[in-house]
């Protein structure tokens, strides 16, 4: 194996919420690695802690116990500001509800993360164009979210997630609000991105979608119950049992 550390490592990660003295452990003692270039699906019933886990990987939240390493560095040691800056450069989020800014057009939405990377407006717009082209949405650059279909909005959101060339794209049920055909298109887009080497972690409820990812991580009641890598997706390479 390579000498460089995995892109992301979780070591005995737990996250406990405390409301009115009642402690809810949303994620319990979870450990796994994500390697550069992987595409992984996170599955599990509602309330099993998938989003909580994703928020921690995305540096929006910190574990109550255990440690998360991003390229070998413990993120718990980073300041709030530092984690924000890392999010701008290294993490691309895709949400179930797209989360585009309604009052900005597609290209402005796509360019938004670069505002927080300190990049000039001219370059921001140039790169946003590229990113929109990569998801096939350049012709809709000056449309506002309300003028776009759900699938189109999600494409714009994916362009936004990609614009800063992040280390990892985190998608929380990206096809959850789409019909199955549009969902399949979005999934194909993710697969194509992964083919270019983009690391992707995607939460999904759809077993059909999960089977298209090489790796599936299953949660139940906050615990990791399965972490399977399918051999048949890439038949050339054999995987140890």
């Amino acid at each position, binding site marked *: 194996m390579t000498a460089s550390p995995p892109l992301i490592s979780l070591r005995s990660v737990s996250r406990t919420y405390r409301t009115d003295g009642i402690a809810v452990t949303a994620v319990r003692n979870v450990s796994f690695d994500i390697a550069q270039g992987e595409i992984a699906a996170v599955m599990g019933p509602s309330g099993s802690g998938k989003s909580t886990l994703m928020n921690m990987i995305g540096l*929006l939240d910190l574990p109550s116990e255990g440690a998360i390493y991003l390229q070998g560095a413990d993120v718990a040691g980073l300041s709030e*500001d530092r984690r*924000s800056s890392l999010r701008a450069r290294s993490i691309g989020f895709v949400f179930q509800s797209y*989360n585009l800014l309604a*009052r900005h057009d597609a290209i402005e939405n796509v360019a938004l993360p670069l505002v*927080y990377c300190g990049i000039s407006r001219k370059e921001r717009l140039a790169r946003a164009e590229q990113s929109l082209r990569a998801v096939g949405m350049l012709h809709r650059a000056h449309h506002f979210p309300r003028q776009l279909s759900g699938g189109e909005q999600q494409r714009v959101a994916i362009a936004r997630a990609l614009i800063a060339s992040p280390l990892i794209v985190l998608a929380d049920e990206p096809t959850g609000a789409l019909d199955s055909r549009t969902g399949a298109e979005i999934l194909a887009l993710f697969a194509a991105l992964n083919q270019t080497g983009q690391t992707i972690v995607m939460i999904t409820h759809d077993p059909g979608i999960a089977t298209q990812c090489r790796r599936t991580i299953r949660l139940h009641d906050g615990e990791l119950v399965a972490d399977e890598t399918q051999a048949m997706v890439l038949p050339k390479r054999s995987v140890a049992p």
Partner: protein
Amino acid sequence: MTMLQGFQIALHALRLNPLRSFLTMLGIVIGVASIVTVFAIGAGAQLRLQEQIRSIGANVLMITPGAAYQGGVRLKDGSKLTMTESDVQAILEQIPEIQAAAGSIAGTAQVIHESKNWNTTINGTTTAHFMVRDWQLAAGRYFSNAEEAGAGKVVILGNRVARELFTAGEDPIGAQIRIMKVPLEVVGVLDRKDPAQDDVAFVPLSTAKLRFLGSASNINRDSVAYIIAKVAGDGQMAGARSEIENLLRQRHRVPAGQEDDFKVQDPAAAMEAQQGAIRTVALLLVAIASVSLLVGGISIMNVMIVSVTERTREIGIRRALGGRMRDIRLQFLCEALVLCLLGGAIGVAGGVTLSMTVARMAGWITSIDGQAIALALVFSIATGLIFGFYPAHKASKLSPIEALKTE
């Protein structure tokens, strides 16, 4: 994120809701407009007073008739001319601080030159009057001794009267005008002072008594309506004043304990006091206007707090995409600042327009002061910072995860 980007985002957000943005800044607009207007009117009033003080002349005392009694009945102040030409002489000769003194009687009359005529004050006095008031000639000469002694038919015109009676090319000197059917030769035209002072025509005191006012019942040969006197130095005003009072009391035989039949006034001092009063009133009005600025600030804070709540999801998105807490804070602070600055600018424009309108409609002098404008703008920036800080801070403290969950 830079300040500039903050302002760009703020402008974008405010443009989306122009009516709301305008209503939000209305308090600031009104506050700043009132401050600018009040300053302009106050400064104008002060300018006018200063001009009047200057036009009276430096170190001038004015002696007017005071209480008069007729058979034990106290008459209205000034209803009887209690001062005389010999009082003028005595003041000049016996009080060393007095450099010049002149008695006057005055009335109004129509002055006529050819087809033009004008109603103005006719002041009968001596050449000393112009010395007391430091009033120079624009053309011609003052009265000669012979004219003063012998009721010469000569007149010196105030600048305004000269302009009303003569056309631009005409030379008034040597021209004949008529006042109450008496033909008079114009021997001098005075320098400009201020509009109120320039509307006057001077004739020798003897001329006024003999030819115009001789028949008036309360005039005796020697009476004057008021006396003006020039004091040598600034510091000698109070001394000269009490000396004049003592002298006149003696000369008029005012018994001890009875009110003087004259009053000695320092018009410049009175006006300066008035100036102080104007300043106080102006400050009071500015304070009231500042309250409107405060209300404007509170209204901005209120709208900003609502806006932060409405835009919680946007804040969550921006945080997830890499916005730091301070970027969020800067964004909302910039919005408050832009609101206040824009409101301030509109307020300044409104204030300038308003004070110019007041100047035109009411005929007041207003003076628009760069300092007042700068002050008003500094106030509005401060308002933006103070009242924008809390909402901006609140926005920056939102948890991104919670913010993303809101609808």
